């Protein structure tokens, strides 16, 4: 049996109000792909941050290649051969790929940065592991998948042989996930050890050799990927059986509550949206599928009033709201779960309860003249935290101290609690664990049952198929296909998403 490269013994880390890691014994073997799974707030990220020196454990020991080691900080971790690819990339947007990679490990000639040598080494690394990356582009011009590759190259450039990745697939589209996995397999084959966190159990089972499950800060167990399945894993994670499919009742849809007519959005000479028309009726879930970057983001932003359409109209229950500011659109009973929770969804250094009331704080019962009724808010915040199972010590903590999935729950709680008539949700379950996904899906279906119109945007086909009554596929800024969910398959949708069949030609034409 291969010897462990990393072993932790009784590793413990507490934050005010929570024990994030409780006596964790972990054993990672050289050359394996080891997955860490667990509910939101189970302590996965914390454990990884300890391993890469960002946090110091309160108790316990880390053995690196058999030697008890204190990992002082990330720089030290790198020296020890441990590199981390963070959930939110640690890149300087304005720098080129090369500059990002060499930062902190620069080589010089006569006092001058030796960019040429660095570039050569980066190309070597890319060659060796089959990465596709241009070292001279600025990072801000790269796609998310490419940015992630930069992060991996950064770690390899420093000679790491243990690579830690926190939810690397959460931000990727399916094709990029496949590419990443190919890369990871090649890395593992050449002797690198990979530890990664994911909520997508299918992926975990696909790529990992072994899987460790955490729950409530404790280790539940480590299993071989071949010896378990999705259900088994989910049950280990949550502690009860999890429903993967949600049942929804047949329901005759009502009046159209959200209507989009001939919407176009031009940026310079390029159409980001072109002649998009759709309607979502009360009691209906409309799913928008598409590879990211095909206009979904813009569509949602235009509907919400974050951007003005070039042409076209938006109607909410027959009232024209085109061009109204966001506050007024929301005033018509529209809730919005944005795709980027850090940029649009939350104010990170405000507290959990403040975030729970952002944008809803004008409600009569929450105000006394110009003042906010804090006590009422705190009370309601506690109820929401209970109801949505947000794992947090107290609602007075800044929302930035929550785990990723719990931040997402804060947004969902806020948006669903406002008694909307229309819900627009982008990637509503991104970063959530299986249990929380089940919960959110149930809430969306309950909203449908209550006669709300729900528009979801998701890159996850399984999710779109499971939830939607009707599905629209976007490609190149157009709605290229609209079908009833019961009459299509993931394969068919996938084809349209990639622009093949009929819609493809037109869509290509306008891009040119």
């Amino acid at each position, binding site marked *: 049996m291969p010897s462990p490269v990393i072993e932790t013994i009784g590793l413990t880390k507490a934050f005010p109000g929570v024990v994030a890691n409780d006596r964790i014994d972990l054993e990672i073997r050289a050359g394996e792909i080891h997955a860490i799974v667990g509910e939101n707030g189970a302590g996965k990220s914390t454990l990884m941050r300890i391993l890469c020196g*960002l*946090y110091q454990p309160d108790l316990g020991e880390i053995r690196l290649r058999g030697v008890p080691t204190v990992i002082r*900080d*990330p*720089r030290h971790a*790198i020296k020890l051969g441990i590199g*981390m690819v*963070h959930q939110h990339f*640690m*890149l*300087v*947007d*304005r*720098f080129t790929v090369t*500059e990002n990679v*060499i*930062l*902190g*490990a*620069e080589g*010089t000639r006569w*006092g*001058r*940065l030796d960019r040429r040598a660095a570039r050569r080494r980066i190309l070597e690394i890319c060659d060796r592991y089959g990465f596709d990356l241009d070292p001279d582009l600025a990072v801000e011009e790269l796609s998310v998948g490419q940015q992630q590759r930069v992060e991996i190259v*950064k770690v390899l450039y420093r000679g790491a042989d243990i690579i830690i990745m926190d939810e690397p697939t959460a931000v990727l589209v399916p094709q990029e996930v496949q590419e990443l996995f190919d890369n990871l397999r090649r890395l593992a084959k050449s002797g690198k050890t990979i530890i990664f966190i994911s909520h997508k159990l299918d992926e975990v089972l696909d790529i990992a050799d072994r899987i460790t499950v955490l729950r409530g800060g404790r280790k539940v167990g480590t299993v071989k990927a071949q010896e378990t399945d999705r259900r088994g894993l989910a049950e280990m994670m949550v502690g009860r059986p999890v429903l993967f499919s949600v049942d929804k009742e047949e329901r005759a849809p009502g009046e159209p509550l959200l209507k989009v007519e001939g919407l176009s959005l031009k940026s310079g000479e390029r159409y980001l949206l072109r002649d998009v028309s759709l309607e979502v009726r009360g009691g209906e879930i409309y799913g928008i599928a598409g590879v990211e970057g095909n206009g979904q983001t813009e569509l949602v932003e235009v509907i919400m009033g974050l951007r003005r359409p070039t042409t076209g109209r938006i109607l909410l229950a027959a009232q024209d709201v085109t061009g109204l500011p966001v506050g007024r659109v929301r005033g018509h009973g529209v809730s919005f779960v944005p795709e980027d929770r850090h940029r649009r969804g939350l104010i990170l250094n405000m507290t959990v309860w403040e975030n729970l009331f952002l944008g809803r704080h004008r409600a009569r019962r929450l105000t006394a003249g110009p003042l906010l009724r804090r006590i009422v808010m705190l009370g309601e915040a506690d109820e929401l935290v209970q109801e949505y199972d947000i794992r947090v010590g107290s609602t007075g903590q800044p929302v*930035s*101290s929550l785990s990723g999935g719990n931040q997402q729950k804060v947004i969902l709680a806020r948006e669903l609690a406002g008694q909307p008539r229309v819900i627009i949700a982008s990637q509503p379950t991104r970063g959530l664990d299986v249990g929380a996904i089940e919960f959110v899906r149930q809430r969306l279906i309950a909203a449908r049952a209550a006669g709300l119109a729900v528009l979801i945007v998701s890159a996850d086909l399984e999710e779109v198929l499971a939830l939607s009554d009707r599905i629209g596929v976007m490609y190149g800024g157009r709605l290229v296909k609209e079908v009833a969910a019961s009459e299509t398959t993931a394969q068919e949708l996938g084809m349209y998403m990639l622009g093949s069949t009929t819609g493809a030609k037109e869509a290509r034409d306008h891009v040119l």
Partner: protein
Amino acid sequence: MIGGEMLASAIRMTIPILLTALGAIHAERSGIVNIGLEGMMIVGSFWAAFGAYHYGPLAGLLFGIMAGGALALVHAAATVTFRVDHIVSGVALNIIAYGTTRFASLSIFDRATTSPHVQSLPAIDIPVLDRLPLIAPLASNVSPVVILTFALVFLTRWVLSETTFGLRLRAVGENPQAADTLGVNVFAMRYAGVIISGLFAGLAGAYLAVEHTGMYVEGMTQGKGFIALAAMIFGNWGPIGAMGASLLFGLSEALALRQVVEFIPYEFFKMLPYVLTIIVVGGIVQRSRPPAAVGTSYERGE
């Protein structure tokens, strides 16, 4: 109207702005707003006069530089270590600079507002150039500091873009967390950026006292520290751009000074730098883009 004399005067007015703008670039590229540059110029000008009075002009410049650097150290400690709001610290330092200088002036020179006259560095005639008809006034009888300043523009540019130090300095101003995880010492880099800005501002003040006026006069900086910030923004946080902006502002000051155009009130020229800066910041001329993390404090662990 705008002859060689005028241009020579414009360049003299440019120097303190440009030096301070170069300093400001170091601070802001590292992520720290240094609105205390005005104060650093003030202490620079006074202590330079003090040094020059006692030990000669070169020592004077060194005194000025050190005084600016010392005040910058306080700003660095406040903003980097103690995470005080950058503006608050800068404003406080401006007040402190004004007060301590006046106090020091009273106790050292027995006068609150001026120092005795001091010696300047020997002026230089730049060979060859000082014979050319149009350029002659620009190239003869120039202070060595003028030449040094233009050299520093290109040195700054080289350091920022071509050295490890420059790369790291820019990195901590763009994304300190990323830099930190790569083992870049964010605190050290930011201290360096701020202290360098103080050294530059101190030299700018010293130039005003020792080279430009030949004595310290209270209020001689006349808000040039703020104009320098405007020049930095106008120049899009780069040394070459800042040089262009400083020259423009220097020219408008020279024009204001001479009141060459009779029917335009001189206040108009005084106002020009600010108006231009607002136009630039408003994105009308070009998109200006500050360092992404400027004005924020960095704390370890999310």
